[in-house]
């Protein structure tokens, strides 16, 4: 029986955690088996929740989000016979599967679309917690924007420096409004539940927004230009179905990241934009464009 520990933000953040939830639900439907779950409410509960899952014999125990890395590492050592998995971080243990994504590639495509959609030549980025992972999003996004329009300006803000930054829609909205005031007309939020505030603000101001992790296009049709989906659902589903220790990297090629185009944003995606995205995708896949990974060298260079 697998178990999942959602991180701060909760399984209904309509973003990262929710994607994991969707994946597990799919697994549940297909197998007819049940899984254990826990949503942590504060930082200290992570390790306890993981340990409790392990104590109950759950396997694999899946930690959603890098925040759980240290907890998984610790508990995985204590329970070497059980299986563990961590999403978005790497834990080097024989009984742990780590799943990481090439967010920079997906973000690149999002940047391409943003630059194409922007009239003002100013696009925005709102990150959740200021951590390398989010800088990775920003870095890929910036490259995509510059790829289309080298003169475009990317205005970026981070919501905060702690886990609370994933869960602060009010502040997200404020940051978005501040960016709009400076002329931004497309904003990409990689901020978990905080993003909900960003999208709402974009809608209120008649601007465009780009979702993250889950496909968030349906949240505000007409406002959501696209979503940079990170198939956490697929990852979690695979882990639940077939746990294989080691590190799994999911990028554009593996279908692990992408921009979502569906009935909710069809009208916003012009053929020109679509073409640019396809070109960029092909270039990345063929290696013609090498998208810089911020986390590889801790800088966007």
């Amino acid at each position: 029986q697998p178990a999942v520990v959602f991180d701060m933000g909760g399984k209904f953040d309509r973003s990262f955690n929710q994607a994991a939830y969707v994946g597990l639900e799919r697994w549940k439907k297909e197998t007819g088996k049940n899984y254990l779950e826990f949503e942590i409410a504060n930082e200290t509960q992570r390790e306890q929740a993981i340990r409790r899952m392990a104590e109950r014999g759950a396997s694999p125990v899946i930690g959603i989000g890098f925040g759980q890395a240290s907890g998984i590492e610790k508990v995985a050592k204590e329970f070497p016979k059980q299986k563990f998995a961590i999403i978005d971080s790497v834990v080097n243990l024989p009984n742990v599967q780590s799943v990481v994504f090439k967010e920079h590639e997906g973000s690149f495509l999002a940047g391409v679309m943003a630059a194409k959609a922007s009239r003002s030549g100013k696009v925005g980025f709102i990150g959740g917690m200021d951590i390398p992972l989010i800088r990775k999003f920003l870095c890929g996004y910036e490259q995509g924007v510059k790829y289309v329009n080298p003169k475009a300006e990317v205005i970026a803000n981070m919501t905060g420096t702690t886990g609370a930054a994933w869960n602060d829609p009010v502040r997200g909205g404020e940051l978005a409004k501040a960016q709009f005031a400076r002329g931004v007309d497309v904003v990409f939020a990689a901020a978990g539940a905080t993003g909900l505030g960003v999208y709402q603000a974009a809608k209120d101001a008649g601007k465009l927004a780009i979702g993250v992790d889950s496909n968030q296009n349906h949240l505000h049709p007409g406002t959501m230009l696209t979503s940079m989906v990170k198939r956490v659902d697929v990852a979690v589903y695979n882990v639940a179905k077939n746990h294989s220790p080691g590190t799994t990297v999911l990028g554009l090629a593996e279908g692990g990241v992408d921009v979502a185009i569906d009935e909710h944003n069809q009208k916003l995606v012009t053929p020109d934009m679509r073409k640019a995205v396809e070109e960029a995708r092909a270039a990345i896949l063929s290696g013609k464009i090498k998208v810089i990974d911020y986390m590889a060298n801790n800088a966007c260079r």
Partner: protein
Amino acid sequence: MSAPTLPRWAEWTLLPLANLALALGVAGLVVWLIGQNPADVIRVLLHGAFGSQRGISYTLYYATTFVFTGLAVAVAFHAGLFNIGGEGQAILGGLGAGLVALWLAPSLPAWVMLPLMGLAAMLFGMAWALVPAWLQAYRGSHIVITTIMFNFLASTLLVYLLVNWLKVPGSMAVESADFADSARLPRVHEVLQAMGIEWASSPLNLSVLLAALAAVGVYVFLWHTRAGYRLRVVGASPGAAAYAGVTPARYILLAMGMAGALAGMVGMNEIAGVSGRLMLDFVAGAGFTGIAVALMGRNHPLGVVLASLLFGALFQGGAEVAFEIPGFTRDMVVALQGFIVLFSGAMSVVLAKPLARALAWRPAQPKEHGHG
């Protein structure tokens, strides 16, 4: 015509129990309202808290933290002060223990390191409590407000230090590096194992003994030492304190210093005992739970210990219920805690009169004590 008063024994046993029952009743109503069966919840809760070695250990582990914060409220209360700052003092305590551990643990053995961490935890918590105490004693700033403000200041300070100084570079989690092994308080199951007793693993660590020691210490201090006596005089009757030549300011500082040190010990339980590194929000509202604990326990160390066990059981059992019963969240325990504070604290006297009347409603009236 005149209202009968509640006898003392009833004031100490019946009234708190009645208040607790009321709080549980209201919480049960809420449980029922959200479509759960209160009886099921209670059953799972009790089983989760006491039904297994592991459950008991977890209960004790939570209780340990609550004993510290509860005593921190109780000691201050005996000096007539309402210490809402347990949260901040506990944060500082953890910070103290953590800083010492990060700094010295690699080079010191456990038997030096652990006492040092305990000392640091107490000193940091104490220092944090002494500022509002000093402001109250010498500048008349109301301690309730200043301690609230100090809670916020403490948590921003912790965030600042963790984010800017203590975080492992390149790591994404806002946590310090792991402490060296010498800075870890042994877990109870490890100790028992070393003694040849099998016991389920749990976060319960040796700070549970420190908590017991603290409760005894506070009891002895308050009722068996001169300083404790004077502290209680200051709290119970400022006029009598002046008459007896006791300087209130000094005892305000003493009481809050002790309170801060006690709350700081939460750092030992959570940081040295469980997480083994400094992290955000490790106090998790225990400072506020301490208020409920002290109110329930009537500010007596024994009462605080009992109330801590109650709350420990509620927290552990509540977590278990959250696991077992879908749709039930641990927040229910938080709400219950709120009801207990309301009924045992703010409305504690509301039931006194009807209760007294119920008790007095007997055919034969017991004779009152004689008059001079």
